[in-house]
């Protein structure tokens, strides 16, 4: 007769490996998930990289010209040359201008009053009126900021000779601006690296959440628990494939950033991957924790979205962190994506070194440790 077998009671690498293998096999068969792993980063990168622009150019502009002269033509040309404005219509009067704004046909209306040139020549400092559809501040902000400079450039070019006295006097002192890290203000440089964290938190939190609750929902968890596998072996074994997935997604985005969007790689690539690994760890612990609260896959999905939204909005990915009120910043400071965004942008754009990065690394470590503690505590060993 066969004797009873007494087994080793600690963490078993062999059992852990059996879980890892199983997860990889299941992932291999799950075509949709696999498509998501590769598809989401590429799709997000195309959408955010090509479709989103925080410095919009060529905005539709209408002109109401009650006065025609060299000066007005020169100013209109300067507006077009700034690349912010594109003249799309000439309108007869102010009513037509208001209507065009109200209907959203144009973003700006330039109103040149009658007698503008005559007043200018008499030195009366006449005004041009620009009306803007300012419902969306981002759409109009940069263009409006460019307007005063245009006067200067027209004045220096056309208001010469006997009129030179009318040109603005040089200002008593000058301000020099250096736009560091992204001198041309290219949105993609900021958005594409930021996408890495967004994609990682979206897919990893959801996928681990689903992977864990799927076992419970299908009843296979009961089977697993009835074998000698320990919960810690299940938990750590199940997340291994997702670490690989996270690194794969990071690589896709880095390749896109480098070769499609030509984002500068000022910093160390090793630092990028270290930061990514740390953030992957943080996201996976969140996924596991959510799964221990969720009763089924639908709930896990809902919780993942619930987690994802504030991360997306408050982390400085979509809107400038410094522009948020104090309470929102405080909330943002709890979220791992906030720190990862600072890390990845710091490394890629600013070439930050380890001492610069440390203030954003330790909060991520702390977050991971805390959430892991919760996860282990709530991950139920037995079914009750």
């Amino acid at each position, binding site marked *: 007769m066969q*004797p*009873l077998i007494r087994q080793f009671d600690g963490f078993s690498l062999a*059992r852990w490996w059996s879980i890892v293998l*199983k997860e990889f096999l299941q992932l291999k068969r*799950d075509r949709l998930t696999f498509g998501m792993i590769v598809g989401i980063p590429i799709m997000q990168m195309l959408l955010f990289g090509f479709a989103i622009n925080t410095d919009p150019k060529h905005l539709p502009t209408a002109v109401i010209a009650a006065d025609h002269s060299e000066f007005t033509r020169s100013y209109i040309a300067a507006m077009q040359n700034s690349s912010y404005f594109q003249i799309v219509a000439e309108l007869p009067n102010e009513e037509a201008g208001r209507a065009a704004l109200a209907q959203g046909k144009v973003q700006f209306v330039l109103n040149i009053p009658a007698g503008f040139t005559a007043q200018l020549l008499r030195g009366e400092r006449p005004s041009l009126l620009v009306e803007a559809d300012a419902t969306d501040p981002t759409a109009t902000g940069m263009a409006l900021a460019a307007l005063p400079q245009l006067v200067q450039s027209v004045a220096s070019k056309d208001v010469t000779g006997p009129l030179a006295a009318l040109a603005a006097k040089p200002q008593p002192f000058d301000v020099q601006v250096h736009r560091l890290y992204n001198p041309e203000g290219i949105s993609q440089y900021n958005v594409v690296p930021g996408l890495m964290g967004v994609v990682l938190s979206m897919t990893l939190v959801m996928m681990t959440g689903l992977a864990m609750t799927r076992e419970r929902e299908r009843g296979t968890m*009961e089977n697993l628990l009835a074998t*000698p596998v320990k919960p810690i072996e299940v938990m750590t074994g199940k997340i291994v494939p997702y670490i690989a997935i996270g690194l794969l997604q990071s690589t896709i985005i880095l390749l896109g950033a480098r070769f499609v969007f030509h984002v500068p790689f000022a910093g160390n690539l090793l630092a990028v991957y270290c930061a990514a690994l740390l953030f992957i760890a943080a996201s996976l612990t969140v996924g596991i924790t959510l799964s221990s609260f969720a009763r089924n896959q639908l709930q896990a999905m809902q919780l993942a979205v619930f987690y994802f939204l504030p991360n997306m909005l408050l982390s400085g990915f979509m809107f400038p962190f410094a522009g948020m009120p104090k309470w929102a910043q405080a909330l943002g400071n709890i979220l791992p994506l906030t720190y990862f965004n600072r890390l990845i942008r710091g490394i890629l754009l600013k070439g930050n070194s380890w001492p610069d990065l440390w203030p954003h690394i330790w909060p991520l470590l702390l977050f991971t440790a805390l959430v892991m503690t919760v996860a282990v505590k709530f991950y139920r060993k037995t079914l009750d």
Partner: protein
Amino acid sequence: MSLPPTAEAPSEPEFAIDVRGLHKRFGDKHVVNDVSLQVRRGEIFGFLGPNGSGKTTSIRMMCGLLTPDAGSGACLGFDIVKEANQIKRNVGYMTQKFSYWDDLTIRENLDFVARVYGMPNRKAAVDQALENLGLASRAKQLTGSLSGGWKQRLALAACMLHAPRLLLLDEPTAGVDPTARRDFWEQLHALAAQGISVLVSTHYMDEAERCHKLAYIAYGKLLAQGTAAEVIAQQGLTTWAIHGDNLFALSQQLRAMPGVDQTVAFGNAMHVSGTDAAQLESTVQAAATRHGLKLEPVETSLEDAFIYMMKRSQDNFAEQL
């Protein structure tokens, strides 16, 4: 790291399962109430009771999946609270619902089980199991595509793979056709002959009769335990069979009469049972004569006994409320 099994593994005790006074509550529901069970080595022990009576919960406590609120005991000589891990290594547990992975192939499922139990000759063990199952040619088929009967056979093979000394089978034949059920029980008896103990929960009377011993549980309480004959005898019932057509109306009348505790319809016959033999006899004699029906005394069947127990426990439960 896992260590090889230690040489002085404990010898198997006389009782594969020996638990006393198990209690389990979920919230305010007392799901298992003072259950004590002894299953001898090499015995097939049937665990019966209506749905929601606490069978699954009891089985889960015995194999270390659930911690009992009160009570103690041993499974294969291992303490059910402190040595749950050792129990899991030596017990094969087949869940009520098929719980292997549909998106793994048959071989992958078996291979996973073999790995998890740290079997020394993994490939050989899996090959042998596939051969025994007659699934060797379909080893690469996804498990989800198997029919219910095949899934059940695979589940049994998988929970037998690590050569457990005790099988805990939770309604293994639910939804399986009669031929497959008969094969399944042949297999169980062959295993028992090798000294493997089996605890099997079921709803089927024919299966109950094939067990060496039985226990009946309702509302979390163990109502009877012993061989089929003992369980029947414990109820102290006398049973008469009345043969004829249209017995339904008669059964309604009889239930209200003195001495009759229950009537059970069996096709063209009706079993009338009661604990007061003399009273029952006079009642059924009178009824049979009045309607001109054939009457004969019969042995109380296991089904009669179970229906009686279920009815009585319902009444008791209603009183408690």
